[in-house]
């Protein structure tokens, strides 16, 4: 069951109805039942895995809390993290490890056919695994207390709006909300509906429409002209932003309708003026998770090496992020490139700041525009590697962009590109006004009711008219 499926459009109002007619005392359990029903609908056996991870998390966090001895707490922490990570590693990397051993044995002329098990990655496993690990580490670090009520922990790890693709929420923010369930007021319901509407617009009108073009071009990159590949490479980051960003907004809005406040996952990433800033605006819940639980412990460990330690930590963190995206060389290189970008920025940050101060550049529109463009180009270039099937294809795309001339591929239906561009322009205008003129040119928050209604109606009509309803899944389901 995904947010764009008919099942969800039936499931959610029914769940909300059951939830609000249940007496407050038992509401948590209605939600819990709804969460598991949602996940069982994806695949029943996956729910067992989720329940196992939840039980494990509950048991070990309680043990960490109960014990006074630091060494024992640490042992519990390590055992718990290993146990929780095992399924993720197994499902995500088993086939690759299998293939690796097969070819390694083959290269020394031992033909030992290992069982070829093609495992399907349980949807959402990364997201609830990360949420559980964050909770365990927070308990270990005494940031929060281990929850006594297993129902609260289970509702947190299985919370259906966040279950399949995040945002990767923190126990610190969510557990108190599950313990004291809130009734949403009129304003928060209205805000939540707005987020859901815009989320569907981003997903159905922009991401899935752009996806059609990008998929066609990248699937046959060797036959397309430089101009076409350049356009697809520019469009792809927008597709990912609209896909995961749209999904996140629907998730945040759905949670909001039930009275929950969930963290923001994207904050107008393509107006970032540095790669570091882009990573503070892009997939925020993942990056803050990595910062808190991977990067900070690493920089702390390497701190005596000062800047060299920081760079090493940056590289390791982003390589882990790359490998998490997939067990392929392309993702490893993608992570490595992000690490390189950020390291260069870290090494030059002081000098850049002095230079900008000297010429008062941070107040000059053209300079900020230039930075935004450069950051986008660097990011889009790295995304080509993340998107390509292998490194050879990625290099071939770069090569063709600069060397193969010819017309732009439009395809059989020019509407694909036209609708993509209309949607994209609307997204950019909204993000631009929110970023640079939040109090002016408001459409959705305009003081005049007629303008607001027009804005919502336009979005709703556009979703119905040019939305792609038979589009693919959300990109991040596969992670």
């Amino acid at each position, binding site marked *: 069951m995904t947010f764009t499926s008919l099942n969800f459009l039936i499931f959610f109002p029914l769940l909300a109805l059951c939830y609000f007619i249940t007496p407050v005392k038992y509401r948590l359990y209605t939600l819990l039942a709804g969460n598991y029903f949602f996940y069982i609908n994806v695949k029943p056996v996956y729910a067992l895995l989720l329940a196992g991870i939840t039980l494990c998390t509950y048991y070990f966090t309680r043990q960490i809390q109960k014990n006074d001895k630091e060494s024992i707490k640490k042992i519990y922490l390590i055992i718990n993290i290993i146990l929780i990570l095992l399924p993720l590693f197994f499902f995500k990397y088993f086939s690759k490890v299998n293939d690796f051993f097969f070819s390694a044995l083959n290269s020394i002329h031992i033909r030992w056919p290992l069982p070829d098990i093609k495992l399907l990655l349980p949807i959402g496993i990364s997201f609830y695994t990360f949420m559980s690990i964050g909770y365990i580490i927070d308990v270990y*670090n*005494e*940031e929060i207390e281990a929850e006594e009520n297993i129902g609260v922990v289970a509702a947190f790890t299985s919370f259906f709006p966040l279950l399949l693709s995040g945002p990767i929420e923190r126990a610190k923010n969510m557990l108190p909300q599950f313990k004291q369930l809130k009734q949403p007021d009129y304003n928060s319901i209205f805000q939540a509906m707005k987020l859901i509407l815009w989320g569907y617009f981003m997903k159905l009108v922009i991401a899935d429409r752009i996806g059609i073009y990008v998929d066609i071009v990248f699937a046959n990159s060797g036959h397309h002209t430089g101009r076409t590949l350049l356009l697809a490479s520019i469009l792809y980051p927008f597709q990912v932003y609209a896909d995961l960003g749209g999904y996140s907004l629907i998730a945040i809005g759905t949670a909001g309708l039930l009275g929950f406040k969930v963290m923001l996952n994207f904050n107008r990433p393509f107006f970032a003026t540095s790669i*570091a800033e882009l990573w503070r605006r892009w997939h925020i819940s993942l990056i803050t998770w990595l*910062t808190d639980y991977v*990067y*900070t*412990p690493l*920089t*702390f460990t390497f*701190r*005596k090496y*000062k*800047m060299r*330690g*920081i760079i090493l930590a940056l590289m390791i963190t982003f390589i882990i992020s790359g490998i998490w995206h997939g067990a392929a060389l392309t993702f490893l290189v993608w992570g490595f490139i992000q690490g390189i970008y950020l390291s260069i920025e*870290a090494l030059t*940050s*002081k000098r850049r*700041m*002095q230079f900008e101060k000297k010429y008062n550049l941070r107040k000059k529109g053209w300079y900020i525009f230039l930075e935004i463009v450069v950051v986008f180009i660097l990011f889009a270039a790295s995304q080509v590697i993340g998107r390509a099937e292998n490194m050879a294809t990625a290099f071939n795309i770069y090569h063709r962009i600069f060397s193969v001339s010819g017309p732009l591929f439009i395809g059989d239906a020019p509407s694909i590109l036209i609708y993509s561009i209309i949607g994209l322009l609307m997204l950019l205008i909204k993000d631009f006004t929110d970023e640079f003129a939040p109090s002016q040119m408001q459409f959705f928050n305009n003081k005049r009711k007629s303008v607001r209604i027009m804005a919502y109606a336009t979005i709703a009509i556009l979703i119905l008219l040019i939305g792609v309803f038979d589009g693919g899944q959300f990109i991040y389901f596969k992670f």
Partner: protein
Amino acid sequence: MEKEEMVKKLTPIFRNVFGDETLEVTDELSALNVASWDSLSHMLLITEVENQFTIKFKLKDLNKMKNVGDMMAMINSKL
């Protein structure tokens, strides 16, 4: 250690790490008030503070320091 003495020792570290010669070290000062205080400069700050006071922080301590006031209390507890 007296607060005044600690502020005197911390000020040059803060000014150097955050590249701001006018920065005043107060209890309330935190990453929210200093533009260049990010995860990168934070760790450089921690290292400089450790060296200055010859103390060692634990990773857990980092989360407990929400502003400079917390940091000064933490330093004092380790002296």
